């Protein structure tokens, strides 16, 4: 929290530096003395895990880029060169490739933790919005990164996804041309995707700094949703949170390492080990798993929206799908204002808790349907779940806040902790 600083420079150089550039003071106040609620559970460690994954992706990516060739005739071979001839190239590439998946696993848990504990509520709206921006940047980065190996799924995924933009009226075709650097996915596309794939992570770093800054201004939420009221409610970041985050990171790395070393291709499409061929469409074009819920929403809109009883089409199914997909992401921005409840944590919101878990199941269901062919029962189910997805945000969140009767909220974090530990209130 921004307040007085407890940093006391010890050495002469420390004092000299502190008077000129108080970097050590910033680090001390942010990561040593910074007070965190004493009741944070393990779901709150994913912020630290995400920072770690960002560093892993940056470091492996920078080294991979030293050996990768962004040219359609050489990209596929250069990735295989990394896998076969570069020292520990296979390790770097599998870390980077699986790292993307684990980055998304962590970010999804982090986001759902935010939903559950109402982390987006006053005064943390800006913190939440910065998080949504990071999430969207991550998706753009991951999509462009997936194109770089220039396998079949790279090429056809890029073709399908960039084709969405043509649905936008008037400017759609121009936007697509600008993205691709031409009429079709080809060498100019690969070049600009490589350039942007290298750029965006550093933009993510920038927004992450703002995200952490905003966090340190408002302080963290906690499972009770009650704000920190006294020093008794908190513990210093070091050693308490550092040690807890370190443990969580190591356990996360354990699972990550399991996939890197034993199941490195489990999360990828085998088709991407086939060189891109613009004349041969794969039987099914499926994006990476972390895009599947959004892909299902995109394909769920199979109908034109127009004025009833006339032939006038206002939004054709393609544009409708694109709007629904982008809408499903952009709606995150206004969640702080859609949720009308004054109570933060789902712990004290019995109804919200049920709807939260229904929402989780809906998202998993959408992910499952995103991998299925868009036909018959799958489309119908995707439409039902897409409806519920938006219904949750637009109707359930505002209405619940008005009609729900929350459980009694503890007076302070300390009181909740003592009650949980069976200590009588003093």
């Amino acid at each position: 929290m921004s307040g007085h600083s407890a940093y006391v420079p010890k050495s002469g150089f420390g004092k000299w530096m502190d008077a000129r550039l108080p970097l050590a003071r910033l680090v001390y106040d942010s990561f040593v003395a910074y007070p965190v609620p004493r009741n944070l559970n393990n779901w709150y460690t994913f912020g630290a895990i995400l920072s770690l994954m960002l560093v892993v992706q940056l470091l492996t990516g920078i080294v991979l880029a030293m050996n990768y060739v962004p040219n359609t005739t050489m990209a596929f071979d250069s990735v295989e060169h990394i896998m076969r001839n570069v020292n520990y190239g296979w390790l770097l590439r599998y870390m980077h490739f699986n790292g993307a998946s684990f980055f998304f696993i962590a970010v999804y848990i982090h986001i759902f933790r935010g939903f559950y504990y109402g982390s987006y509520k006053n005064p943390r709206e800006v913190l939440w919005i910065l998080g949504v921006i990071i999430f969207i940047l991550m998706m753009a980065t991951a999509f462009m990164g997936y194109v770089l190996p220039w396998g079949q799924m790279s090429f056809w995924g890029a073709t399908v996804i960039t084709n969405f933009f043509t649905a936008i009226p008037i400017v759609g075709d121009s936007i697509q041309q600008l993205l691709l650097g031409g009429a079709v996915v080809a060498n100019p596309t690969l070049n600009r995707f490589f350039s942007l794939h290298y750029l965006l992570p550093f933009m993510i770093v920038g927004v992450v700094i703002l995200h952490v800054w905003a966090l340190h201004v408002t302080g963290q939420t906690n499972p009770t949703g009650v704000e920190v009221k006294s020093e008794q409610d908190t513990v210093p970041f070091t050693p308490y949170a550092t040690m807890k985050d370190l443990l969580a990171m190591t356990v996360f790395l354990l699972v990550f390492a399991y996939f890197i070393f034993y199941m490195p291709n489990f999360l990828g499409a085998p088709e991407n080990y086939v060189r891109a061929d613009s004349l041969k469409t794969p039987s099914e074009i499926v994006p990476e798993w972390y895009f599947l819920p959004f892909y299902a929403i995109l394909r769920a809109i199979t109908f034109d929206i127009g004025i009833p009883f006339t032939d006038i089409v206002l939004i054709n199914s393609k544009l409708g799908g694109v709007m629904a997909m982008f809408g499903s992401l952009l709606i995150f921005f206004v969640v702080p204002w859609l949720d009308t409840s004054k109570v933060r944590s789902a712990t004290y919101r019995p109804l919200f808790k049920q709807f939260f878990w229904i929402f989780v199941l809906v998202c998993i269901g959408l992910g499952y349907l995103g991998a299925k062919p868009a036909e018959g029962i799958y489309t119908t189910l995707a439409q039902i779940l897409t409806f519920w997805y938006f219904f949750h945000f637009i109707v359930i969140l505002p209405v619940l806040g008005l009609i729900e009767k929350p459980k009694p909220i503890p007076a302070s974090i300390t009181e909740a902790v003592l009650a949980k530990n069976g200590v009588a209130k003093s």
Partner: protein
Amino acid sequence: MKVNTMKFLVSRIAGIAVAFGLIMSGTAFAAEDEAPTPHYPLIKPKNVEWSFGGPFGKWDIGQLQRGLKVYTEVCAACHSMNLVAYRSLSALGYSNDQIKAYAAEYEVTDGPDDEGEMFQRPAIPSDQFVGPYPNVQAAKAANNGAAPPDFSLLAKSRVPLRGFPYYVFDVFTMYAENGPDYIYSLLTGYVDAPANVEVPENANYNPYFLSGSALAMAAPLSDDVVDYDDGSPQTVDQYAKDVAAFMMWAAEPDLVSRKAMGFKVMIFLLIFSGLLYFTKKRIWSSVKH
């Protein structure tokens, strides 16, 4: 009161949703009965016990050498393997001289020389495996329009989907040998087409084939086509296993060293997280949380 009403509503909504789901799945099954759309492969690959499977997997060097022999004498007539260099064969236990001799049997175009002419020379260990055709067009022309795929990555790219819930179990059983299982099954899976299946001209029925009921390649192996000098059975079954293992090696030469390093990393992380766990417990012991 409000809470009770809402609870009632929630249970109603849930009930309707379940009923709706049942009706929908009912119609789905009905639809499937009417027009069965075939899913390829028609038969899931057989499971073979591979020496390189599991956490401590090791190459069976004898098997890889036999696989190379099958590739060289049978498959290489049509299939290239252009991402693998001859020098990599040292991993199969061959000496430098043996690799030089093996490579020298193939010709590569090099140049231009000082006169500006391209010339032919025998391949050397640093060259990639020389393919049977100069280009894809030539490969297509020689094979009824279907170019035989390059061997380098087939064991990783030809992987039938396992489907839910098998892929969940695979995470825990560490099953990652779908590729070689598929190749083995395909090579041993040629049978006469059932009466109700129409096989196109120049295609061969195989229920294990990934993307249809028939493929351009005819059964490539038969008993005794390759001579083994280590006493292994000279059967289609053995050939198929050996060449599938060899293809896994070609697709992922570092598979075994990857698993060996993985074991060390896992042990380190386990011990480290154990130590961190007790440290954290000690630190937090004075704070109720």
